[in-house]
């Protein structure tokens, strides 16, 4: 089995593909080996001579491989050379499943796999879908909460502005000195006239107290 897998690896790597970790393959039904050329993914389901003891097991192998179609861009069924004559290649072609024949001469691509588009839905497991849906719900919930918070901030901001203006008014009223008479009687000497110090000195004591 490992010998076949090594042959397949060599076959695809030589063609510019990179081996994908099977864990990276997002499918319930995992392939034995997976590749990517950077844009599309290739899944290969490998069956050894030992696994294909009877006709039913071969049919099962084909069905398992078919289940991978749609989960990768291209899906291959890899069989020992001896089984190539038993399978009707047209059925595989109709379902877009490729066939690799592995034997003493290495790997032969008997039937090229058809290129499939992978739907998001198809590329995701049900758990992942659940997680995404859950995430979407949470996102929606967060959006709602952010909107609520934005509204709260807006209301608070308005409230603060209102309070600030009230404080300024109150301070201005506090600072406003009590009305004092700075009317200078006519008989006072000339150095009293238009003297700005009168206003300043009349408030001595008051400005200290308010400070």
């Amino acid at each position: 089995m490992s010998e076949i897998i090594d042959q397949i690896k060599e076959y695809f790597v030589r063609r510019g593909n990179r081996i994908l970790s099977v864990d990276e393959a997002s499918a319930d039904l995992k392939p034995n080996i997976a590749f990517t050329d950077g844009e599309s993914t290739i899944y290969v389901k490998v069956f050894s001579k030992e696994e294909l003891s009877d006709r039913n097991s071969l049919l099962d192998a084909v069905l398992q491989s078919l289940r991978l179609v749609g989960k990768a861009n291209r899906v291959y069924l890899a069989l020992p050379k001896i089984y190539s004559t038993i399978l009707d290649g047209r059925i595989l072609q109709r379902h877009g499943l490729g066939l690799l024949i592995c034997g003493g001469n290495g790997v032969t691509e008997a039937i090229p796999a058809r290129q499939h588009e992978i739907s998001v839905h198809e590329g995701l497991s049900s758990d992942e879908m659940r997680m995404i849906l859950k995430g979407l719900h949470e996102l929606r919930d967060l959006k709602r909460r952010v909107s609520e918070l934005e509204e709260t901030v807006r209301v608070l901001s308005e409230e603060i502005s209102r309070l600030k203006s009230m404080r300024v008014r109150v301070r201005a009223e506090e600072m406003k000195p009590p009305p004092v008479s700075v009317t200078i009687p006519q008989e006072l000497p000339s150095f009293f006239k238009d003297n700005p110090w009168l206003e300043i000195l009349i408030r001595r004591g008051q400005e200290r107290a308010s400070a």
Partner: protein
Amino acid sequence: MSEEYKRRYTFGADYGTSDFKFGPITCGETPEIIENRGYFPDTDSLMYRIMGAPREVVVGKEIPLYLGSREDLTLRMVYPMKNGIIRKNDERAWRVVYEITKYGLKSFKPPEKEFDGFYVVASLSSIAPRYMYERLFEIYRQIDEEENLVRAVTIIPQPLAVAIAQKIPTCVVLESGHGNTQVCPISRYPIRNAVVAINRGGGDANSITAEILKDCGYGDLAREEAFVRRIKEKIGLIPKDLTKAVETAKKNPERFRVIYRVPNTRIEIDLAENSWTRFLIGEYVFNPNHELFHSYFSRGMPKPEDARIGDITFRGMIDFGESIIESVERCPIELQPYLYGQILLSGGNFAWKVPREFRDVATDSALKIRLLLEEKGIRDAKIVMTKDPQFSVWRGCIVYGYAVPEDYEWNWERMEGWLKLRE
């Protein structure tokens, strides 16, 4: 006591270096003036016996009646505020202050029945230490106990009073008297920690005048201070630039020659070819650092030294421009341009004449200060001479007493408010 009462009986008392200016608000534009001095007569003298009741100290206009010989004068005549500061234990000086204060208050005792003491605003030099305030308050308390003349008293620095009289709330006041000069920034309050005191005043201009007179052969006359002072006032000139002025005067001595005849005497002063020295008299007050003064110092004329009186250091050789900058730079940066924008020159030491024919080389105090500031990079400073400098402080005291509320009590931290002498 009501605000109305306080305003009616506001009394100003300016303790100047030479004169004591005093009087209530009813004096109008000008106060009463007596010389700030006291004479301790020789109790054995004939005049003392003739004048009747024995008096330990004589003040006011009676002094000439008691004067003895010239030698007696230096011993018995006391000018308490000669340097702006009275030493703590100078009992004779404090005695004179007591006498002139009492004299001033009694001179204006109102006849009205309702009169129950003045609200006195006294003014001291901006460098007066706290003990002077305490002692002066005590003097007023004593006078009130004896004469019932003082209801409340406050003391303000003279530069603040000048700024009030000149109607300028933000300014630098440069007050130059006989013995010293003070630079005090004001921004609604005096900025006390920015005050710069200078150990130079009109007396120093007298000193250089005396030296010049000696050099010109009038050594005998140079010993009489009153005479020297008169000569200084008649012949002294402030140069725009001392080097250039001296050069100009030396080239053309006749142009600057001055002959002064002392009225009603045979005395005639002629500086002849030394007439260029007229510029030294003015320059010395504003800036004694020119090399021309070195020869006078080396020949024994005392150089203005830094002096410490109380907690204050009086700077000897700092020029007036530098002293203003030093004072202003102790104030907040934001305030500094406003302070340079209003520099008030106050005191008799700034009253220098500029004869029309010498305007190319001589100047007045305001322009001289401007030139000194410009040398140090301060441009656009506005310098003005105070109007009626003799009365400025008293006027400021009257406005202060009239306006500051009666219920604003004296506080030692703020150094302002009314100290009530009675319960």
